[in-house]
């Protein structure tokens, strides 16, 4: 019965037809403070700004951190950065550039402004979405969402925003709050044959091991994507990883840049608000 209720509610939320009064008690800023407090109590040795290093900020993962720092001396994502830089600097057939689509200058950092709620369109806009919509607006075919050129472009834009503190506006309109709550709901809901939620690994069992993997805390996650995973042998976007995580607990994954993952990203990015961008990442 509970499962049915949850999926019914998710359906309503996702379709955007829910009046926010149901979730009026929701206070994203309060949620964020509780989220941060939880991790600070769980890992008193980790300084707030170090959460952007993900699993490598964990004291129990000192050996992994050392190996990661060795790789970071000349990280594999540098190749993607090269491709991303070339893509960013190459004008479209109509002469316009990616910079023309963004109200923020690359030198001032673009990534820290994403994802955000677009009140006019009543949807969450992510960086990858903005990049591909820029292409389409200028008569170019959009890239795939999970890997390849979109990942390289996003890595480059992210890299140029490294160190910039994310100062996202708290969701406040009814639409923004509904999207936030949908993302939060996805995060805490059990799913799949393994009946696990994102929170099971990345909140309640953060710092613990799954076989030889040390589970990273969710705080800081969105700051270091996209990511070059040795496992993929390539760059991949945040939504690519979301899909993989869902499939790992044997749940159906959702479409990259569909409403579910954009809302999830919105929730997670707000939980990491105040941290600095640390894109792109290199992981195992």
């Amino acid at each position, binding site marked *: 019965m509970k499962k049915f209720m949850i999926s019914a509610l998710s359906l309503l939320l996702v379709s955007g037809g829910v009046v926010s009064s149901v979730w009026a008690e929701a206070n994203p800023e309060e949620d964020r403070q509780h989220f941060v407090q939880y991790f600070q109590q769980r890992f008193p040795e980790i300084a707030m700004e170090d959460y952007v290093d993900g699993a490598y900020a964990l004291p129990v993962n000192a050996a992994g951190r050392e190996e990661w720092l060795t790789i970071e*001396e*000349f990280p*594999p994502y*540098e*190749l993607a950065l*090269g*491709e991303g830089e*070339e893509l960013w600097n190459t004008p479209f057939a109509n002469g316009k550039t990616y910079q023309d689509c963004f109200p923020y200058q690359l030198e001032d950092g673009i990534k820290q402004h994403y994802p955000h709620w677009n009140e006019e369109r009543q949807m969450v806009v992510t960086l990858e979405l903005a990049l591909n919509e820029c292409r389409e607006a200028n008569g170019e075919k959009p890239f795939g969402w999970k890997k390849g050129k979109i990942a390289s472009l996003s890595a480059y834009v992210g890299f140029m925003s490294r160190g910039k503190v994310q100062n996202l506006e708290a969701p406040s309109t009814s639409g923004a709050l509904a999207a936030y709550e949908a993302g939060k709901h996805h995060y805490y809901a059990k799913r799949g044959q393994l009946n696990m939620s994102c929170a099971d690994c990345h909140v309640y069992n953060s710092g613990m091991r799954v076989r030889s993997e040390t589970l990273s805390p969710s705080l800081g996650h969105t700051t270091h994507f996209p990511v070059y995973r040795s496992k993929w*042998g390539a760059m991949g976007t945040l939504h690519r990883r979301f899909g993989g995580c869902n499939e790992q607990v044997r749940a159906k994954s959702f479409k990259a840049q569909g409403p579910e993952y954009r809302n999830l990203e919105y929730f997670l990015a707000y939980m990491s608000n105040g941290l600095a961008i640390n894109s792109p990442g290199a992981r195992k």
Partner: protein
Amino acid sequence: MANSVRMRAKATGNVVEVKALVQHPMDTGQAKDKNGNLIPEYFIQTVEAKVNGTTMLNAQWSVAVSKNPYLAFQYTGQKGDKVELTCVDNKGETFTGKTSVR
């Protein structure tokens, strides 16, 4: 995108460290594609590093070098040295990279 060779070379006193990252699949010949067919081996076999036109290093690699291979070496030199890297794979394709020592 053409295969690229990214390089960095830095002098600390008279010790120059050169680091390079080369874009290459380094397929072992043991992995299979979606249809269950073996992907043939495709990997960089030899690497030559020249400093100011003189060959300093000749390396031979196997399929066991990681995808998008990394290489670092050190030599006695100075800022301004010109370093050139040439990689040749088992198909006979060549990739080169150049940098000046900072």
